[in-house]
């Protein structure tokens, strides 16, 4: 353990690289967590919005309303007029209020929001129901939030994949850095190793301190990265302010789960251990 202090500059360097690599993985994981959370929230409140033609008469609207209401899949139905839709939009996106007011017309069509009974309903069944309703010429468009949930979920998966790809490259780089740092340590302690071999030390006895050094570097680097990710999650919303409005819900961070934290620490340990092991295998042949 003395060597960790003895060669502190090179160890600080490798610690920084390991930390940065895991920060990248951690940041993307936390973004992906947020997207998955949003998708889950969206899925919980399962509803279909049917947008109607503006020029429909009240009786035509009533017919569509009845058709939707009597479907066995539907729990409740709520009719939303253009004015209510406009007010809701201004409430959700206050920064876009001026654009809407400058239009001088209300672009929102009347709509019927149907809340579905069972959130676990298969998507195919719902799509079949939507298609039935859509046959009605008064229905202009349909918005089904599960599709959005799926899209957000896919975005979450994509974010995670980008994180693992970028992080993976950096983790690989840290693997080589740990490997080289340990190689330098082996070189620096060449005479000690030689004496140990001559007095009958086993290979394991000689290798264990180097492997421990690698593991300590890896675990310390990944732990440090968790602190950095924690502070990023804390500080990022402060930095952004409310400039992104509702979009901020999507472009946000969520704390890593316990499993993810443990996986990152374990990953750090593995990077250190394997980096060290590869160096010893190549450089400390007995």
């Amino acid at each position, binding site marked *: 353990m003395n060597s960790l202090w003895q060669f502190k500059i090179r160890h600080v360097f490798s610690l920084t690289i390991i930390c940065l690599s895991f920060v990248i993985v951690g940041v993307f994981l936390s973004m992906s967590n947020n997207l998955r959370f949003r998708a889950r929230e969206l899925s919980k409140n399962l509803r279909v919005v049917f947008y109607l033609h503006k020029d429909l008469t009240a009786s035509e609207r009533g017919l569509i309303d009845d058709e939707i209401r009597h479907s066995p899949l539907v729990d409740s139905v709520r009719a939303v007029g253009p004015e209510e839709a406009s007010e809701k939009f201004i409430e959700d996106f206050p920064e876009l209020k001026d654009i809407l007011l400058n239009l001088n017309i209300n672009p929102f069509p009347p709509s019927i929001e149907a809340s579905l009974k069972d959130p676990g309903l298969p998507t195919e069944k719902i799509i079949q129901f939507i298609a039935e309703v859509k046959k009605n010429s008064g229905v202009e468009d349909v918005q089904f939030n599960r599709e959005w949930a799926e899209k957000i979920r896919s975005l979450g998966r994509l974010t995670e994949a980008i994180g693992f790809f970028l992080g993976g490259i950096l983790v690989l780089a840290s693997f080589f850095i740990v490997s080289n740092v340990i190689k330098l340590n082996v070189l620096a302690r060449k*005479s000690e190793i030689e004496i140990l071999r001559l*007095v009958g*030390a086993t290979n394991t006895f000689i290798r264990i301190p180097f492997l421990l050094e690698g593991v300590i570097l890896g675990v310390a680097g990944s732990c440090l990265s968790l602190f950095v990710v924690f502070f990023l999650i804390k500080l990022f919303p402060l930095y952004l302010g409310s400039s992104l409005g509702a979009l901020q819900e999507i472009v946000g961070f969520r704390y890593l789960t316990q499993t993810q934290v443990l996986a990152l620490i374990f990953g750090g340990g593995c990077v250190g251990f394997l980096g060290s092991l590869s160096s010893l295998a190549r450089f400390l042949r007995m």
Partner: protein
Amino acid sequence: MIELYHVWKQYQKPLWALSDVNLSVTRGEFCFITGPSGSGKSTLLKAIYREVIPTEGQIIISGINIQRIPDHKICAIRRQMGIVFQDFRLLFHKRVFDNVSIALRVLGAPPRDMKRKTFIALRMVNLQQRLWDYPSQLSYGEQQRVAIARAIVNNPRILLADEPTGNLDPDLAHEIFGLFRVINKQGTTVIICTHDKELIRRFGGRVLYLHEGKLHEKDVG
């Protein structure tokens, strides 16, 4: 104890560092290997502690053919040996105690046992007062005595010394050889490589002469 049968060693063609060396050293023997520089003395010692592997021939240590045992079992053979070098090979960033106890540390000796045995070894070489000094604070003679203490701390059956007095003045060399004699009297087989004929004459014992890789028994009288 140590048997060599038709041992040949070639580092590069056409020169042979060892040429058909046959040797048998019995338990408790005190033995010198002498010869001019480059005659193969160090190679012979290295072959005995398997730092080099002979090109041909067999080396038997305590009944074990060390050519045939796998690399990872060499440590068991080396634990029976103590090795002393001309350049001492001490760890200058470690204290005398750590330098000596390293041989016990690899055996996994308990700390108490380690302290006791290290102290006994250092007392034997008369350095018990310098336990916590660094090697750089010691004279050459004292440094070599630390190296000897390290070699004997785990009571080895065999002590190998490669030009142990090469860097020391005659008085110190005499003192060091005296130590080897004491260690030998306790039952340890001692093999010393040296070209110091005067010391060989003074201390006596079996003398083997190496010349161009060939070993001859020699009568030094």
